[in-house]
């Protein structure tokens, strides 16, 4: 039977796997949206472009935070020492 420790480790592994996938999906979706923005009429292009940029930035944020999660945790533990 899995212990609570195993469950926590499995959840962490799942999230570490999921994070980069979400990041890549967002960046790719952002790229596609940016491409589609170019074929939109000029009054709508801005909206599409800002949505695309938001997606790309969102993807970068996910990648950065997920990639540095362990580092943030261990360094934060020394913040108030």
């Amino acid at each position: 039977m899995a212990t609570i420790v195993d469950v926590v480790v499995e959840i962490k592994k799942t999230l570490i796997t999921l994070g980069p996938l979400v990041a890549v999906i967002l960046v790719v979706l952002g790229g596609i949206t940016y491409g589609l923005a170019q074929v939109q009429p000029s009054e709508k292009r801005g909206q599409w472009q800002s949505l695309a940029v938001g997606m790309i930035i969102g993807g970068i944020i996910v990648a950065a935070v997920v990639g540095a999660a362990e580092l943030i945790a261990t360094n934060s533990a020394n913040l108030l020492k």
Partner: protein
Amino acid sequence: MGLSASSLSAGSSDWLFAIDIIVIGILIAGITLGLGKAFRSRRLFAFGIEELAQAVVNAALLGVIVAWVTSADALTADWADSASLSCPGIAASTNQPLYFVRCSLAETEARMLPIASSLSAASYKFGWLSGVTVSANVITARPFSAFSEVAATYWSFASSISAHLFALQVQLQFLSMVTQSAFSVFLPAGLLLRMFFATRKLGGALMAASIGFYVIYPLAYSSLLAPKALFASLDAAGASVGKTLLPLSGVPIVDLNKEGEVASLISSLSGDDLPSLSTSPFEALSSANASLALALLIYPLACLALTAVAIRELYLSLSSEFNLGLFDSL
């Protein structure tokens, strides 16, 4: 990694478990933050920021708790000298005050048990003596009838020691649970629950309770406990009762039908100053009882009150929101 006795030193299994939980919080926060930014959801973005901040604070708190435990060890080095205690049946712990308290209690129990047994024997022997009736023709006498009061007094001392043993066992078992679960179950559970808005107060309460009972209660208790004085008082009481029981080794008489057995007993006991000998341990017993009442009832209650105040204050801090005002800024 097992959930054995807690040890929150950096790099220990409990530490890694707690860090894993904080990493999960950061991962969830990161994903939520990115999705919030991508789909322009202010709620999701604000949730991500709040969770990230809470996870960072959780990690910082974890570091502070480890520092507290280390400081508590250094702080108690002067008075909590566990090396001088035999610690029967107590596994070594990295939390020095908690280990000292558990060792002191275990050794106190080891010294109380023979005294309780001697007191029961004294009560029985004096009770038996007080019932001895001698009949000679028309005269019937009970030469030791006055000892019925002495027997009752010994019994009340034995009852009192039993009550103290109960209080001691309650504390030992509670502290054993704290040693095993405070930092390996309650603190990680608190860290996990504290990360989410809906369970933040519950998580804060769990964290505050685990800090209170693992750090503050043993620290306060170890500063009040004076095991050497307590042991001296118990040893004096035990020796005193043992000295009183010495002339009563022939009591009760097993073979009552043996001729002259009772007369011989009365004769042998008359040689000793039994009345003053029977009451001589009362002072030492009262002193031991007072020491036990202080160590096992009054000090723990005072420490519990102090711990409750500390837990309340910690809970108020740990369960609070940051209110970063992100809804306004976005």
